């Protein structure tokens, strides 16, 4: 298939024959999804609910090396007897300082906590969030290294809470994915030429620095390492194996321990964990968006497009794709229902006749192994 593309707004789903509704639908785009950015003890938010944010705007401050700190007694300290929840937002930081201590409130260590001792010359900026209070004494999760978390995309803050996270309603639209690894990130979309649906590692060079690269059916651990070294911001592939995700998590752990922080790197698997090529309608959509600013979100896995209107691929309504089984990844046209069919190992499943690719004859495929696209 070579899906044509044309620019239009949000498309309405065409009428679908009743038999086709038995085939699970896959939505190519979702509009204004709510995404989450997870924070932990020691991290604070710099935004407040209802606030509009743009891509690249600092929305949180993460403590890179949080430790458990016994803060001691604080002025006005009572067991949670105060106003607000500790989030004043960036603008309200002055009022924030005047508020009595509360769990989750941003705390900056006093002189005795700033590391001024005989062995150190300069003061350390020890800061974090308060955890809890026992008998008037407060504890905190704090550290002396902090980094700003930038918003990967534009949107409106739905929830924001120190130590917990930020929920944001995205302004644009997004392509849902199945798996994500790494961190939320953003960059320009780069769709290089794929060889047999795959991207060669050597294609990942410094010229793609700052890009989110479409990597074909599968991305290897070597490709991920190389991409990070080349300052590539992220990769999008058809599938993402668990081994690669573990390698990436280990690499991120090492990165966090290092003093020099690198820009966030994220990776998306559009279909799952087992190797499958990127679905042609999605590849066509990505190709049409090449060069535009996009963002990778990890919770939930999404590729966010900072636009409202995109050129959607024009698909026949009986266009289906095999998502699992021996023909996984192939696409074609649904011909008719095949009723209950006996498959390998004597398993009886509801089936359909599908003409895959350029095949001359139909292939009988279990309906549960198929997917159709919903625009």
């Amino acid at each position: 298939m070579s899906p044509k593309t044309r620019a239009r707004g949000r498309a309405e789903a065409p009428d679908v024959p009743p038999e086709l509704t038995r085939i699970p639908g896959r939505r190519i785009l979702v509009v204004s999804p709510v995404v989450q950015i997870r924070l932990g003890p020691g991290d604070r938010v710099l935004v407040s609910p209802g606030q509009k944010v743009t891509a690249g705007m600092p929305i949180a401050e993460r403590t890179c090396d949080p430790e458990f700190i016994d803060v001691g007694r604080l002025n006005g300290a009572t067991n949670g007897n105060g106003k607000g929840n500790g989030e004043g937002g960036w603008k309200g930081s002055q009022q924030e300082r005047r508020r009595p201590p509360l769990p989750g409130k941003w705390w900056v260590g006093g002189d005795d906590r700033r590391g001024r001792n005989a062995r150190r010359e300069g003061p350390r900026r020890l800061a974090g969030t308060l955890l809890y209070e026992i008998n008037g004494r407060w504890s905190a999760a704090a550290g002396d290294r902090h980094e700003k978390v930038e918003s990967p995309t534009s949107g409106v803050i739905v929830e924001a809470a120190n130590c917990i996270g930020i929920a944001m309603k995205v302004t644009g639209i997004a392509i849902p994915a199945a798996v994500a690894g790494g961190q939320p990130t953003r960059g320009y979309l780069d769709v290089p030429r794929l060889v047999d649906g795959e991207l060669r590692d050597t294609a990942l060079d410094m010229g793609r620095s700052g890009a989110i690269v479409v990597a074909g059916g599968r991305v290897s651990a070597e490709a991920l390492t190389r991409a990070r070294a080349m300052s590539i911001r992220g990769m999008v592939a058809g599938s993402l194996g668990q081994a690669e995700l573990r390698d990436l998590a280990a690499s991120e752990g090492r990165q966090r321990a290092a003093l020099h922080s690198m820009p966030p790197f994220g990776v998306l698997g559009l279909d799952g964990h087992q190797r499958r090529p990127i679905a042609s309608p999605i590849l066509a959509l990505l190709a049409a968006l090449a060069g535009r600013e996009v963002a990778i979100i990890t919770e939930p896995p999404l590729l966010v497009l900072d636009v409202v209107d995109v050129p959607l691929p024009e698909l026949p309504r009986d266009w289906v794709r095999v998502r699992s089984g021996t023909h996984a990844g192939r696409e074609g046209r649904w011909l008719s229902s095949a009723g209950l069919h006996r498959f390998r190992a004597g398993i009886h499943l509801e089936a359909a006749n599908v003409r895959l690719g350029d095949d001359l004859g139909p292939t009988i495929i279990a309906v549960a192994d198929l997917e159709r696209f919903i625009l």
Partner: protein
Amino acid sequence: MSRQPRAFFALDFGAATTSAALVGHAGGRWRLLAHTAAPSTTDLDALLFGILDRVGKADRELLEFVSARERPGTAALVADLARLESRSSPPRRIAVLAGSKRQRRRLEEIASRAGWLVVGGSADVDDPLELSRLVLAWDTHAVLLGADSSPAGDEKRHLPMLGALVAAAARRRPELAVVLAGGAAIQESDFSGAGEHDRIPEVVKAAAPDSSAESDATPVDVATSAETTEEAPAVETAPGEPAAEQAAVGATPEGPSEATAPAATTAPAATTAAPRAPDLAAPAHAAPVELPVPSGDRHDSVLLAPDAESGQPAGSALQQVLEGLRARSDESRLGIARSVRSLALLLDKSIEVIEVGLDGGLRCRAEAVGPGHRTVVSSHVAMASASFAPEDLSDEMIDAVSSWSTIAFDRYRLSDRLRDLRSSPWGEADGEGALLRLAAAKAAVERLVAATPEISVREMPDIMIAAGGVWASTPPSVVALAMADLVRRPGVGRLACDQARLLGPLGAIADEEERRKMLKDLVEDVLLPLGSLILPAGIRQGRSAGRMRVTGETSNSDIDLQPGGIWAVELPPGQTATADMDFRDAVRLGARGRHFSVEVSGGLGGLFVDLRDIPLRLPDKADQKRATWESWQRAMWSEIDE
């Protein structure tokens, strides 16, 4: 003809599968007219249209009769027929905190048996920062802080810190449900001192379950209720409802006697001239005190619960509280447990169900005991980790699947396949995918069996039922083999499958009497017979163990009993036979002896004679183990090479 339709839809909304059945009253009883199952993403109306269409094509008059209409329109019937529904509760996560590692493990085990996904930490091992991370995480829905009823020094010294930490987290996240178990209840004051601008969590006491019910429920009573028939109404707890409701009932000032009132108040439906569909609007069980409701509602409560040793067996009281906090009232698994209790009383047999689905699994057992067999003792454990494709897939789980698999996988490849199975549970259900699914299901049942020793020590049940979507497409003889592989107890029992997935929805019928009447009509339709299983213990290896003659209505068989094997003897559904066995040495088959004569009934798989070891002895080497599994599997699954 009455204008009231004599039919209803029974719907089970699972995480992976939606099952729909049309039940109609025809020929003087309720009957299963048609059923179907499809991925949960399928449009429900399309599913119901399909069912009605099939019934209409097969027997138009029947459809007109049960719908009480001439030329009934399919669309109108889909809209008008009553629906009896049950649903899977989505998996929810609980953070278990304790002062000591020992206590934490105990609490984690109980929370896991109550169906929660569990993360845990103890103050003697983990620092407060790590514990805070657990309770503040977005995907943590509840916190269980527990201690012994009289905590020892190792726990006691950590409790103030843990109480303050959880109270601080509850202030930050008002939606977080907090359970203080046992001696941790002393920290309750931490939650009542919130300032005027904080949300003050309401403290609700959840007492231990009604002990009077337990006294009647012997010898086994795990997370249980004992119930009686209408002839002996003295003690009747509302069976199987979310247990926190029971606990809350116990905490009302009126006392436990008030709790028994709503159980059987609806008049039984007349099933002759004017049958009526079950009371579908009423909840399965009414409870006078509402405890925090899960699934989307906010919990502004702190629950005081019994400690990890309360109940009989130990931990069952806390398990009930946690289960009530997690499950919705129309949950499928609780519905199955309720239906099984009714069935046990109805059939006067011991019944065990093993259910495996995408969101978890269930093992439950019910048997009639006491004078006149009018009391049912039952137990159930629903575990999120007993999913065939668990959300929290650990290396141990992957290894367990690998050890049951007849295909060689490396760990990462198997991990990828299991994770894809979770995201697409209906995908690749044939060929190699069917073998993987079977191995994953067996590993899930193994986890379930390991977590329910109190059921495993009981005798082989009269009827063992396999339920859940994972068995839906598996050949009956393979399901029977899986049951024989996993639940190894000497004895003779019947094997059946809840093919139409009716047990869950029928468990949602509010009135026990009505449910029992409905089951009485439907029992033949609900339980698809797989066959009978003969499983003797104490067979010596190396030579013929004896002979068995099966004398049936249409055919006879004579089998040489060779140790270490499993055979299927053809015995069609609906037929019964007598199996006479003469063993060379004394074996255990219920009782100990050499000569046995038992009545067996047929099924889709026939009669299974299993002379393998109890427990199974397998080679240590992985390839030899796979070959052993394959040889047994091939004997029952001849289509495997197609």
